[in-house]
């Protein structure tokens, strides 16, 4: 069995700073990490392999330095790393990204299962998983919170929906997107780190894939950013200062009257 995990390199969002003047993001000095939600996908793949054997492959599309993220996956126990990188891919939206990742998986061949994170913390769309499945005409099971059992031609899963958990049997090959509940990501081991450091990461560039040049990069992206702006927060707030017993009680009385006037009691 061969499992591909799709992982994305994202900026550490907690450290993202905004240029207040221009309303743009300051990217310099921002550290890149493996999309935190992809760690659950990595863990799901490794634990499937631990139980049922096979090979796990981490695939990431991004700039050359995305190899650091792939090494992290390797140090957790993923067997093989693939970096999909080419200047021609710059500016790809989810459609173009999914097309490129889909074609990469075709090139790798012989894939039984693809596992994605629920969404990336930067783009935050959660679209790439189902879109890759669509490009490959594979069944997709999203929001998986438990992988129950597995045999040669199907996998039993639990899928988180609004009303509860759906129990599914999905035929292989298939694509899953997983949520946090699916597994607790293991930490990289020292052994793993040593192995990751020495490992060769397979590089895949545009000319190695049979791509339609009109389908990649900015040109191949159906969506365009038309405008970027700072969200504004607008409400007139009446401030009540509660410094001592008297002001606390006066303030609470006002809150109470406010609730009452809004029929919130």
């Amino acid at each position, binding site marked *: 069995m061969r499992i591909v995990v799709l992982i994305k390199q994202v900026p550490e969002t907690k450290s993202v700073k905004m240029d207040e003047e221009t309303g743009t993001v300051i990217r310099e000095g921002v550290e890149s990490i493996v999309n935190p939600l992809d760690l659950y996908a990595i863990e799901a793949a490794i634990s499937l392999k631990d139980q049922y054997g096979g090979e796990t492959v981490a695939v990431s599309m991004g700039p050359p330095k995305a190899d650091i993220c792939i090494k992290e996956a390797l140090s957790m126990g993923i067997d093989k790393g693939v970096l999909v990188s080419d200047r021609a891919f710059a500016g790809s939206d989810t459609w173009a990204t999914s097309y490129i990742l889909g074609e990469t998986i075709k090139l790798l061949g012989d894939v039984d299962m693809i596992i994605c994170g629920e969404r990336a913390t930067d783009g*935050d769309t959660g679209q790439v*998983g189902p879109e890759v499945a669509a490009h490959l005409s594979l069944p*997709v099971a999203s929001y998986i919170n438990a992988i129950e059992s597995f045999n040669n031609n199907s996998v039993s899963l639990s899928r988180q929906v609004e*009303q509860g958990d759906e129990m599914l049997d999905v035929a292989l090959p298939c694509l899953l997107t997983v949520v946090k509940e699916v597994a607790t990501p293991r930490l990289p081991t020292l052994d793993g780190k040593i192995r990751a450091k020495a490992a060769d990461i397979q590089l895949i560039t545009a000319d190695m894939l049979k791509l339609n040049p009109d389908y990649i990069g900015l040109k191949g992206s159906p*969506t365009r950013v038309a405008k970027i702006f700072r969200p504004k927060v607008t409400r007139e707030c009446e401030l*009540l200062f509660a410094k001592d017993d008297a002001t606390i009680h006066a303030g*609470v009385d006002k809150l109470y009257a406010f609730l009452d006037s809004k029929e919130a009691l």
Partner: protein
Amino acid sequence: MNNAKLWILAEQFEGEILKVSYELLGRAKDLSKKKNCQVAAVIFGANLGDAELQKLIDRGADFVLAIEAPELKHFDNEAYSRCMLGMIDKYEPEIIIAAATSTGRTLMPYVAMTAHTGLTADCTVLDIDEEGKLLQTRPAIGGNIMATIRTQGFMPQMATVRPHSSKPAAPVEGRVGEIVRVDGNDFDLSSNIKRKELVLSSEELQLQEADKVVIVGRGIKRAENIKLIRELCDLLGAALGATRDVVDRGWLSYPHQVGLSGKTINPKLCVSIGVSGAIQQLAGMQTAENIIAINKDPEAQIFKVADIGMVGDLFEIVPVLIAKLKNGESL
């Protein structure tokens, strides 16, 4: 159907239309006016009743496109997507909006990819430009900025919006529209996914359904103190929400989280206690009708979205508020 250029994807559960469908119709109303077109609500199911479908018409759908077969009773991505693609081919809608539910977030990207068009996830604002094109505005880069996105040169223009990020359309008694029933068996309904059963969740809290929500932040200091807030919730009849910092510390579970990476709520009343009001947190609650904030820092961001704010120590204020609520006017 030919002038129904704007589609919404309605959803049902056990034959009953879900509220998110009416929220979409609320948005569709403004958009269709600007675009000067009619609205179709697409819905999948098995044996959907006329009375139930009429509810979509009452709330603004000019057409209901009901695609039915036993296999379509529950969401099945393969069957649903084939039907949807067939319908898109036949009627050529220009815009499709769906809720960002487990169904919408799976079906929409699958369909958009296959139809070779763009999709914008989790829009908070939708608008129509002078050319009748859809402007899709969503938070980007962890909510630090807003981006307005266009689908350029591809059709249909597709977007999902977060459940509870807008008000449901109110019903208009006796509104006229047409129910178009489509036999699902006109399409290939085979599937590689077998749904065995649904285990209903016993989740006590219906954060997104609640009229009133109290959100607790890190100012509460420790897990034991949450019981103070629970008491307030009971008295107000409010559901309990939390910031990410509270959830990350394990003081409350993830289903309580409100914000960009949690739930979006749109209640009548939101009370924030010990919450700083980070932009990612505000993204989940700032559309609440009335907002009260309690924070000891007068500069806290949360006051920028509040209607009324109390600056002070929550451990001094909340007990007094609780006493007041218990005793009514007698305090």
